[in-house]
């Protein structure tokens, strides 16, 4: 029974009581409020991704109020002078409308684009943290699979997003995506034709399909998986680094209420602030400069959003191999760079927990204390080699920019990167392993090596050196 002593109101107790009497939620609230967050900067990367997603939902909802997902050809009469009277799709025209005629529209567009870039970047860095500290080990392997899936979906979502405005870059990216879909052995032609509603550039339905995928299907899956990701964390509690009083069977940190809640909301505001400042001050994807897309136009030096750089790099590095059997093209060339390479990288990521317990660490036990990278030189070196391989391919995606900016010959650079694809991971492996072993021996931190001693007066009047 709640005691309503007279008419005195308690502004804290009353709402809590209201909720608890109806939902019995006080227990859950108490659990939430005392949930402990270990303090380490690298734990914020996932939070940055989550908060970027919040910004994406907010800015994307605003954009959806004005965007017209239609490939119907119209004649442009809007606020942007140089394209007056040009024929273009309604989707591209509404992107121009948002950029030039809607109050705050360009801010929202650029904010949305920057937030998408930061979203995928934060997920990627978060993944690196997880891999290099062994946070994917049992019992977190199940949550790690959710996380890797989130990364794949985030990349797909980003690609769908920048394909929507139907500007020149959108169209060039979609042409490549269509060719990659077509390149799937046996089923490619049927699959691509079904998705596009015909041969590229597809029938009018394609833009609506892309739109509903971008604003509903993929975000709904992303949001659901994020909720599952967080729920699993709360069931298992956070992992933590070694430190005073930190053991496998406990978790040391700041409880959610009040300190961590305020700091984490502060991070939300900080992420939003940085993204809004970037959206307002740093131009991104000026679609009005690219012009409308038609299958017969293209431009040199076109670059996708950063998280697709490794795919364009893979497509460019691949020699002109195609596998023909009985007159059929079993494996068209885009398959290697567009499907096989990313497929292998993601397969390795998904297999990592199993590979680690079976071959690398040979450890099947549960772990809640994280390893520092040096503490597991073999895993760190192998992960560094894989990262180096992806990085080489990523760099190869910008070879055309190297040519424009620095005059490096394109063909020579491609041959250089083809060699680097095999050599650099080997170097990264050897070097990383060596560094790990040296650091483990010297017990020094690579970035903040501290050689001094602190001398403290003790109770007995002597001195203790630490």
């Amino acid at each position: 029974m709640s005691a309503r002593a007279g008419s005195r109101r308690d502004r804290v107790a009353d709402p809590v009581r209201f909720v608890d009497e109806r939902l019995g939620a006080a227990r859950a609230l108490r659990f939430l409020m005392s949930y402990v967050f270990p303090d380490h900067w690298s734990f914020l990367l996932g939070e940055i991704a989550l908060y970027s997603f919040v910004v994406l939902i907010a800015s994307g909802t605003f954009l959806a109020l004005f965007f017209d997902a239609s490939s119907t050809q119209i004649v442009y009469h809007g606020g942007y002078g140089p394209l007056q009277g040009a024929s273009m799709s309604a989707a591209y025209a509404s992107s121009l409308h948002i950029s030039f005629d809607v109050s705050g529209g360009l801010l929202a567009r650029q904010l949305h684009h920057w937030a998408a870039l930061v979203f995928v970047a934060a997920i990627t860095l978060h993944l690196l943290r997880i891999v290099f500290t062994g946070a994917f080990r049992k019992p977190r392997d199940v949550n790690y699979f959710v996380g890797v899936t989130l990364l794949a979906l985030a990349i797909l979502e980003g690609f769908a997003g920048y394909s929507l405005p139907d500007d020149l870059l959108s169209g060039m990216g979609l042409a490549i995506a269509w060719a990659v879909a077509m390149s799937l052995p046996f089923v490619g032609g049927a699959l691509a034709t079904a998705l596009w509603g015909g041969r590229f550039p597809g029938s009018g339905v394609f833009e609506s399909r892309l739109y509903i995928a971008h604003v509903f299907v993929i975000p709904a899956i992303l949001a659901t998986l994020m909720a599952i990701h967080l729920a699993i964390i709360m069931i298992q509690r956070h992992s933590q680094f070694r430190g005073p009083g930190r053991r496998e069977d406990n978790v040391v940190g700041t409880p959610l209420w009040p300190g961590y809640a305020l700091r984490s909301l502060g991070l939300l505001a900080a992420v939003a602030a940085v993204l809004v400042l970037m959206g307002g001050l740093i131009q991104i994807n000026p679609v009005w400069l690219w012009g409308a897309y038609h299958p017969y136009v293209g431009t040199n030096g076109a670059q996708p959003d950063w998280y697709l750089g490794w795919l364009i790099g893979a497509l460019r590095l691949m020699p002109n191999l195609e596998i023909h059997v009985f007159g059929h093209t079993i494996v068209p060339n885009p398959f290697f760079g567009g499907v096989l390479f990313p497929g292998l990288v993601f397969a390795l990521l998904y297999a990592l927990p199993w590979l680690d317990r079976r071959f690398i660490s040979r450890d099947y036990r549960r772990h809640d204390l994280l390893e520092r990278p040096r503490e597991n030189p073999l895993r760190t070196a192998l992960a560094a080699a894989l990262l180096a391989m992806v990085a080489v391919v990523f760099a190869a995606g910008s070879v055309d920019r190297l040519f424009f900016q620095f005059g490096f010959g394109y063909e020579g650079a491609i041959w250089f990167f083809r060699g680097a694809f095999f050599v650099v991971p080997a170097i990264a492996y050897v070097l990383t392993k060596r560094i790990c072993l040296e650091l483990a021996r010297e017990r020094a931190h690579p970035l903040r090596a501290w050689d001094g001693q602190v001398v403290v007066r003790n109770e007995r009047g002597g001195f203790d050196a630490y």
Partner: protein
Amino acid sequence: MSSSDERDGGERRPGFARRAWQALVVIVLWRVAGLRRGRERSQELEDPSRRRTGAAPWAERLLLGLFGLIALAAGSFVALFVLDPNTQLLGLALGAALALVAAALVIAGRWLVPQETEVEDRPRLADEHEVEQVVQQGRAGLDGITRRRLLAGAAGAAGLGVTAAVAIPVVALGPGIEDQLQRTPWHAGRALVDERGKPILADAVTEGSFLTAFAQGADRENLGSPVVVVRVDPTTLRLPGERSGWAPQGIVAYSKICTHAACAISLYRSPLSPTTQSRGPALVCPCHYSTFDVLDGGGVEFGPAGRPLPQLPLRIDAAGALRAGGPLSGPVGPSWFEDKS
């Protein structure tokens, strides 16, 4: 009254600067102490839990100021939105407001509310007894059923049927692929026109220039339609024997859609001096830089494309305009399973 105000203000200003300086020193010391703590790893049994209360007075004053500034910045965003929605100023105003909110929240979280470090026991996830119970209860649910396998098989078949029924509408997505992917508008006699629909005269194609042409009357968005027309010195051509007569006056035409990934070929490498430069004219796709030899019938010289560029046989009609001498020499666009090349 005024003198006391001045005195207060005079005291507060250097006081604040000193506090900021002290805060900086504290942060540095705290970081260094943190490093020291990080080095000692044999203290797993030490109890790290702490609780410190007592809001720093400077934090309370600073927060008051921050809240005022937040209202100001957010208000200026509202005013700008109504009066002059300039992207840069809007971004600055809203970004500043959010940055100040971030600062206020972090200051409140670090210096206003109690600082706690707590130790919580981690839940033990595996409980063999519970597992046993669940397994027993699960098995008990199947007690007394004799034809388990048959029933499971039948249920599986039923499930498959329902799944197929739910999934089959996907077939409605696309039209059949047979006629879609192969079709091009080119056949003997079809005129080449430019972007405005005007016929292309042979004389208008000069060496070193690069023209995009379409099949007259055809949908220009159709991948089979756009071709690239260039003129080269006829004596340098090395076309296969069966293509003799495809390049009147040295004018050649190739599909504009790259056979690698369907981008439009929009780069033309035309050597300024055929005697000093070893490599001849080539068409280059800007997406992945597949490079096609113009002289030998569109062969792949470099890059990832697996097939040559389809060539369009040309002839010049009585009016001096370019017409197709037949269909393209191969399938247009990226390779796929049914390519018979």
